[in-house]
């Protein structure tokens, strides 16, 4: 009953013979990798493994990589193969084959790999991301992808390549330029609590829009102020809790982006848990102690934000669009 979730696709196929994998679509990284037969750690053994010997189209390139994701890391080796993502067939796509996934974190992951959707400048090993190969191979009707993340059950979320789904959002799309063509990073020009401007981003803030992060992440220097406004108390392991009976009295938080305030109601940023018949309410906002690359305070718009806003990633114009999710 928690709303601390990740969104994972059906599968991507590797030819030929097809091998299918569930991957996490991650706008916060750029590489594609999958578990492989070269890895025998507990995390790898818990997942479907790619066997390049069963693919007549696979070729190795000999380069190795290390990818830290914060919540897990891996080592691997790069190769090329034909990749089918939702019926889009990409030739000669660089893929990472894991050789070592240490620790426990990936053991419980429901995905066999990660498909990064950010810009090539942050790609480990300089490998070409899937989206860039889609663009260069003219596989898309428009160089756009868009995420709809369902607020409800396990089903219903959609990633669209080549355009946006007008039935998955309502109202106007608000566009804002990408400020650093590395991550899907944008400027945040204001932060409001119950419609009142705090001034905390008056000197400018940055935000990375990241489907691979579940929480909304706030700059550490602001987290105390935000939790005070919410009336949250710090619990164990960095979690902040609120009295569930007060949910209707919690403030609406809004981000001002390119002159438009995008609100988050309490229902968006509060996770409700049930344990032994008791209800607990935690705040889906965590701190980060690292600034953005330009030194401005950094937010991360994870799934807590993206469940409320349909997000459109426009590589042609290097801009991000947000509209109220349907």
């Amino acid at each position, binding site marked *: 009953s*928690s709303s*601390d*979730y*990740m*969104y*994972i*696709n*059906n599968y991507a196929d590797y030819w030929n013979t097809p091998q299918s994998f569930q991957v996490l*679509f991650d706008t*916060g*990284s750029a590489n594609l990798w999958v578990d492989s037969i070269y890895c025998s750690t507990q995390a790898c053994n818990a997942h479907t493994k790619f066997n390049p010997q069963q693919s007549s189209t696979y070729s190795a390139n000999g380069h190795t990589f290390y*990818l*830290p*994701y*914060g*919540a897990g890391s891996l080592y691997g080796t790069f190769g090329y193969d034909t990749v089918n993502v*939702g019926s*889009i067939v990409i030739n000669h796509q660089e893929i990472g084959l894991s050789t070592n996934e240490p620790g*426990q*974190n*990936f053991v*419980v*992951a*429901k*995905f066999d790999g990660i498909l990064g959707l950010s810009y090539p400048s*942050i790609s*480990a090993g300089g490998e070409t991301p899937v989206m860039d190969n889609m663009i260069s191979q003219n596989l*898309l*009707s428009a160089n756009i992808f868009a995420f709809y*993340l*369902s607020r409800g*059950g*396990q*089903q219903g*979320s*959609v*990633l*669209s*390549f*080549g*355009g*946006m*789904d007008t039935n998955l959002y309502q109202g106007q799309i608000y566009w804002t330029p990408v400020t650093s063509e590395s991550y899907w990073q944008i400027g945040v020009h204001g932060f409001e609590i119950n419609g009142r401007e705090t001034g905390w981003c008056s000197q400018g803030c940055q935000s*990375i829009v*990241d489907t*691979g*992060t*579940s*929480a909304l*992440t706030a700059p550490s220097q602001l987290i105390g102020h935000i939790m005070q406004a919410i009336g949250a108390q710090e619990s*164990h*392991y*960095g979690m902040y809790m609120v009295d569930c009976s007060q949910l209707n009295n919690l403030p609406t938080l809004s981000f001002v982006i390119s002159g438009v305030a995008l609100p988050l109601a309490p229902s968006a940023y509060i996770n409700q848990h049930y344990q032994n018949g008791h209800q607990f309410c935690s705040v889906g906002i*965590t*701190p*980060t*102690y*690292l600034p953005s690359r330009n030194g401005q305070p950094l937010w*991360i718009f*994870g799934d807590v934000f993206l469940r409320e806003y349909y997000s459109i990633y426009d590589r042609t114009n290097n801009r991000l669009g947000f509209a109220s999710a349907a």
Partner: protein
Amino acid sequence: GIVRIPLRKHKSMREALREKGIELPYQDPALKYQPDEF
């Protein structure tokens, strides 16, 4: 011209580990964006 890929929602790794009684210590989410420093 639009290719739609249905996504399935799963619990995050932190939440899945918590259900197994393993509580991950706080880890800065932005470490993901600092591979050199990491």
